[in-house]
């Protein structure tokens, strides 16, 4: 008997130990990436880096202001394009299509879900190539703009935001909606006044995760937004560089003082990493607020 118990304990220990090792292994690359980026990227993280572009810079010096601005503008406009479509689809699927009896609507909902699943699996370069093909056919092969990049990124963002948005919306308690409907409110009013406010924190975190998914995209922007040395605030005309593309071009298109180009690339990578971590932190904060709120609600009940 004792023998069996001992064997079981040992097996349990080995299994637990193996799982812990897996957990540690999973974070080792992350820590290594953060550490390398921090140690190499801090070198050029000076004032110039945030106040200068690369215009007129040949060797050392210069900065990434144009890329930081480009990232903000492109990401913001991609979000503006993607979010209404994504949340609209999610609302339709959860609030209307889920309770319908019409077979045609059901079939459409199935198709939409299927297509979004496919869209979620598309490699980002394909989204970029799609946009490139569209603009090359309509506006000529040399056309580059921040807006074209934003549309390509929106294509990547829509499925991400739609899926997590749908999950959040599906979790809104049916009693709340039923209470609203029982009071005689039309469905649109229930959605606007009950469903959306209840799901808001979840939707915000869906949005933030969507943004952090696209903010580091390089390939589509490389194809359709191009790279440049100068500031460009105009989304509709002219090339616009973003941070990931900046990292790529600094590494790939080195001038003579290669060290300076490497240092700038690392610093830009660090800024980008910090931005993504910040977004994840924000999303985490929103989710925590939501949980606290639920606990308060339960306690009051």
């Amino acid at each position: 008997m004792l023998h069996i118990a001992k064997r079981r304990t040992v097996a349990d220990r080995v299994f637990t130990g193996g799982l812990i090792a897996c957990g540690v292994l999973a974070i080792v690359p992350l820590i290594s990436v953060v550490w390398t980026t921090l140690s190499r990227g801090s070198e050029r993280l000076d004032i110039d880096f945030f106040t200068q572009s690369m215009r007129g810079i040949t060797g050392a010096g210069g900065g990434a202001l144009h890329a930081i601005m480009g990232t903000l503008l492109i990401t913001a406009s991609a979000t503006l394009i993607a979010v209404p479509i994504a949340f609209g689809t999610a609302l339709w699927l959860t609030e209307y299509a889920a309770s319908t009896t019409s077979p045609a609507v059901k079939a459409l909902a199935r198709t939409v879900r299927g297509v979004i699943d496919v869209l979620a699996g598309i490699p980002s370069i394909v989204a970029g190539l799609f946009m490139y093909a569209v603009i090359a056919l309509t506006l000529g092969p040399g056309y580059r703009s921040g807006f074209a990049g934003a549309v390509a990124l929106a294509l990547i963002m829509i499925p991400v935001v739609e899926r997590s948005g749908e999950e959040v919306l599906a979790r809104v308690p049916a009693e709340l909606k039923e209470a609203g409907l029982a009071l005689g409110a039309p469905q649109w009013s229930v959605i606007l006044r009950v469903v959306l406010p209840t799901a808001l924190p979840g939707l915000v975190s869906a949005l933030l995760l969507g943004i952090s998914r696209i903010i580091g995209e390089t390939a589509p922007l490389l194809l359709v937004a191009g790279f440049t040395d100068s500031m460009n605030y105009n989304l509709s005309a002219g090339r616009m560089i973003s941070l990931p593309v900046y990292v790529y071009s600094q590494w790939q298109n080195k001038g003579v003082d290669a060290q300076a180009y490497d240092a700038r690339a690392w610093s830009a990578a660090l800024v980008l990493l910090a931005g993504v971590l910040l977004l994840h932190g924000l999303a985490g904060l929103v989710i925590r607020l939501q949980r606290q709120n639920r606990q308060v609600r339960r306690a009051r009940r």
Partner: protein
Amino acid sequence: MQIARLTSLNMKHNKSVKLLTLATTTAAVLLLAACSASNEQPVVPPTSDTPNAPALSGTLNLGGSSAQTAAQTTWRAAFQSANSAVSVNYDPLGSGAGRTGFADGAYAMAGTDDAFQLSDIASTEFKLCATGSGIVELPVYVSPIAVAYNLPGITELKLDAASVAAIFTGRITQWNDPALLALNPNVALPELNITTVHRADKSGTTGNFTDYLTDAASEFWTAGRTESWPAELSGEAAEKTQGMRQALEAANGAIGYIDVSQVGSLGMASLLVQGTAVEPTAAAAAKALAGSGLEAGRSNIDLAYDINRVPTDNTAYPLIMVSYLVACQQYQDATTAELVKAYATHVISEAAQSAAAKDAGSVSLWEDAALQKRVADAAEAIR
């Protein structure tokens, strides 16, 4: 009651979310509004009451040869500083991509390590050029290509065309091969496998390298002159100039060919010319250029070089590339023509050429007065 309470709870909670959103948005907007790069001059839109408004404005997109990257960075920087309303972009995607992009109208000018073939010029419709316009090809960047190697501790290596061909065709696979030891009697070459690195993309550097081997070591190199590395030859493939550099730096015992401006800390082999070892310097490249002539059968604005790979001068370094800036002789769009001409004129100016010579180790056109005159005349023909 229940609903009312829930709603009020929701509202309370929403406040924090709203506050968060508001704060983020405000920060972003403030950031956006406050920013103009401190190294850029504000662009004054040309109006009647600003007499010193910039004469030139617009954007010029160029692309092509990755070997020209360093020189283009230097030229663009100076040109953009002088013309605050002009942006010049250069995509170093390779000579092949540059020529295609120029023909398709994606680039106003191409940078290419190989001039257009005469047959291509006749059959291609250049989208930005006016009907019937020829093209202007200006040799703007003459630079030695280094046979670069990664052998720690070995700073001196002599090779001849035959041994380079033997290495890249896999006939010599060890650094201490008798043929290499015979060329380098005073160097302790290690017993180490040679890793050859070649360009994966269609490259003008590869074109010049294989051209050199074809002319100078015809008995060992039979693949001819090609911009795409012959598929039947083994070796490590590297994407563009930076990929080559990365691959060479990564592998002990590696050897490859790369523009001299991008050699960095790698070793550079001297090539034997008429029995004398010549290092890849700008001066030796200038000698090789002086010993070469323009290709026959071309117009006086199409200045394509026929490089002599077996110079009689034993101070000339024959593995050079002549890289071109290609433009339309006549553009459909007058504004583009004006910008192109201004930029081309800047690139061939004495200041820009010597700046590139300093930054990228290239040969200034101004070292050859006759050539400089021809190039200036050809650039003048752009309209």
